[in-house]
């Protein structure tokens, strides 16, 4: 299915990441957003509030992030595609409803424009310190999809992909910007609507009397119905059986929670997103994501200028984590260098994937700015010494 042209602002634009993210949501078919203002993310919904009345849909500013993160789910069950946008403190408040979306298999998108933390931290300055929170922030076991754009163009592209993945797998998807990517302005090309692929809602084809809201299809994802269509279905955050009814026992829990993770396996086993360059002859690779990947690019240039065979592995889907690719890479290089704007998060995943085959060295940064490329370069040089 192609994008609805009403939401697609085809053309060449000069946009910041936040605005590009909003255009991505509109192109993906989002017609409902709920939000609560927080720097550095607010521009996404500000643009949405300005654009949506002429596209056909609405924005509602809720009283807090708990409200915003559940209002979007009400909208989804009412038939809309919906998303919310926030940053650190608001992301913390949304955790319960990320779990609710995972448990009830409500397709929706959360955009987190990361800033320095903990707590109020550095409202206007970048960090990448919510990466583990995105994966594990809500209680209980569930799978997760989280994408990390490193440019306004990718904010546009990956927001569309986030909606598509959320519909395909019926799961909440995180788009993990950082303040730098959110506020940097670059060229963004928005293609014509017919060139944008949209994954449609997995609406049931069953009549109401045969419909089981949580009976999984072959790929483990159940089909949805919307309120008001005569299905008279039940949705609960309690452990539930295929009918959607609460069922408080070990067997149902096991079946349900394992399925919530297993349904994402195809994604983890091949569809995960990454970008690689100069890895053919590399003896050391820099593994990074978001704004840090752009700083790493400079460090890699400097390393190559000095004759060091260094290559780039850029993580685009932090979750599912590109584990197999990194394991294979670790078998070919001496060291993996992992700079990130936190004191060590994804580096531990890289270490786990490398499984001792290569040395893994983090280049931590507490946030508030980006690395100096020299810091990353120093780590590269040390690794090959």
């Amino acid at each position: 299915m192609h994008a609805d042209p009403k939401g697609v602002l085809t053309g060449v634009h000069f946009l910041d990441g936040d605005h590009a993210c909003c255009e991505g949501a509109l192109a993906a078919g989002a017609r409902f957003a709920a939000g609560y203002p927080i720097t550095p993310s607010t521009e996404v919904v500000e643009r949405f509030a300005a654009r949506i009345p002429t596209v056909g849909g609405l924005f509602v500013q809720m009283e807090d992030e708990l409200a915003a993160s559940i209002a979007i789910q009400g909208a989804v069950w009412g038939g809309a595609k919906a998303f919310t946008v926030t940053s650190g403190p608001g992301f913390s408040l949304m955790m319960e409803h990320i779990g609710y979306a995972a448990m009830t298999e409500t397709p929706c998108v959360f955009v987190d424009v990361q800033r320095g933390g903990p707590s109020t931290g550095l409202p206007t300055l970048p960090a990448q310190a919510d990466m583990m929170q995105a994966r594990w922030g809500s209680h209980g076991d569930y799978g997760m999809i989280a994408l990390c754009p490193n440019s306004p163009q990718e904010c546009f592209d990956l927001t569309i992909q986030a909606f598509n993945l959320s519909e395909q797998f019926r799961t909440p998807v995180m788009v993990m910007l950082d303040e730098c990517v959110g506020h940097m302005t670059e060229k963004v090309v928005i293609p014509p609507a017919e060139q944008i692929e949209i994954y449609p809602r997995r609406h049931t084809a069953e009549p109401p009397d045969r419909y089981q809201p949580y009976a999984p299809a072959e790929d483990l994802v159940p089909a949805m119905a919307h309120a008001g269509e005569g299905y008279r279905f039940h949705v609960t955050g309690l452990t539930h059986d295929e009918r959607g009814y609460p069922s408080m026992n070990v067997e149902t829990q096991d079946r349900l929670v394992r399925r919530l993770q297993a349904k994402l396996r195809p994604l983890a086993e091949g569809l995960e997103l990454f970008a690689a360059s100069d890895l053919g002859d590399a003896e050391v690779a820099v593994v990074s994501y978001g704004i840090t990947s752009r700083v790493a690019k400079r460090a890699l240039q400097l390393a190559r200028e000095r004759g060091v065979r260094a290559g780039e592995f850029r993580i685009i889907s932090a979750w599912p984590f590109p584990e197999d690719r990194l394991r294979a890479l670790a078998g070919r290089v001496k060291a993996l260098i992992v700079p990130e704007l936190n004191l060590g998060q994804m580096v531990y995943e890289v270490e786990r994937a490398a499984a001792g085959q290569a040395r893994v060295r983090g280049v931590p940064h507490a946030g508030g700015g980006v690395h100096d490329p020299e810091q990353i370069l120093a780590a590269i040089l040390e690794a090959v010494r």
Partner: protein
Amino acid sequence: MTEAIPHNPVEPFLRVDRMPHIWCPGCGIGTTVNCFTRALLESKVDLNRVAVVSGIGCTGRVAGYARLDSFHTTHGRAIPFATGLKLANPGLEVVVYSGDGDLTAIGGNHLIHAARRNIDIKVICVNNMIYAMTGGQTAPTTPATAITSTAPYGAFEPSFNLVQLAESAGASYVARWTTYHVRQLSRSMSEMFQKRGFCFIEVLSPCPTLYQRRNKLGDGLDTMKYYKEAGKIRHGAPTSEAVLTKQGEILLGKFVDRDRPDYLELMRRQLYEQLGDRYQEAEVPVCA
């Protein structure tokens, strides 16, 4: 021999395959559900267009028993979920059915903002003066001196007057009944379906297991007697007078019935005014 099974007129509204329900003998929640189903029947709303949204608690289980599109959400967040549901699909009749703790403690902020916005949702708040599901802790509605599991020497915090709260925040319709006043309660619920805007019905309901018994107030039947004797119907009474105490008078009736433009009406009006023909009303459902 075939014997006609006595047909309960509310059965078509319930998920009979989920019975028996979890509520205790003497609990008032089931009575309110009976009234609700009667109101649905009488007001002839299209059942395929009614959605029930609950939070968490004993009352929160209502969503699971109603044979309607039903959503059992998170603790305190039924109203913002209902807000999203209603705004995305305005043709739905959205009913929020939850407990006093859920709606006025953890969810209190959402309650006042939904009333302020005058979102067209219908809230049924079952007030048993306690957090029942978790074992009888103090709620914002617990009257002074009542014993709860977290106030073993008696509650002392001033409690909320919910009907006054709803009115002050902007609700279009505010009423209070008890589970003794079933006819009036169903009528109020029917009336609410005819109204556009934020409606709030408080229903006093016994929790014999955790409130009445712990406070030596007898069982469900004793509570009915109390509701009957202490209940004073005064439609239109100032909500400021509708204060509840442990065993005092209970002011009942329809306190507020006013017409204010609802959220969507205000939004559409403003956007038409500013954007003229460029304004595109959302299609429903907004995503095929």
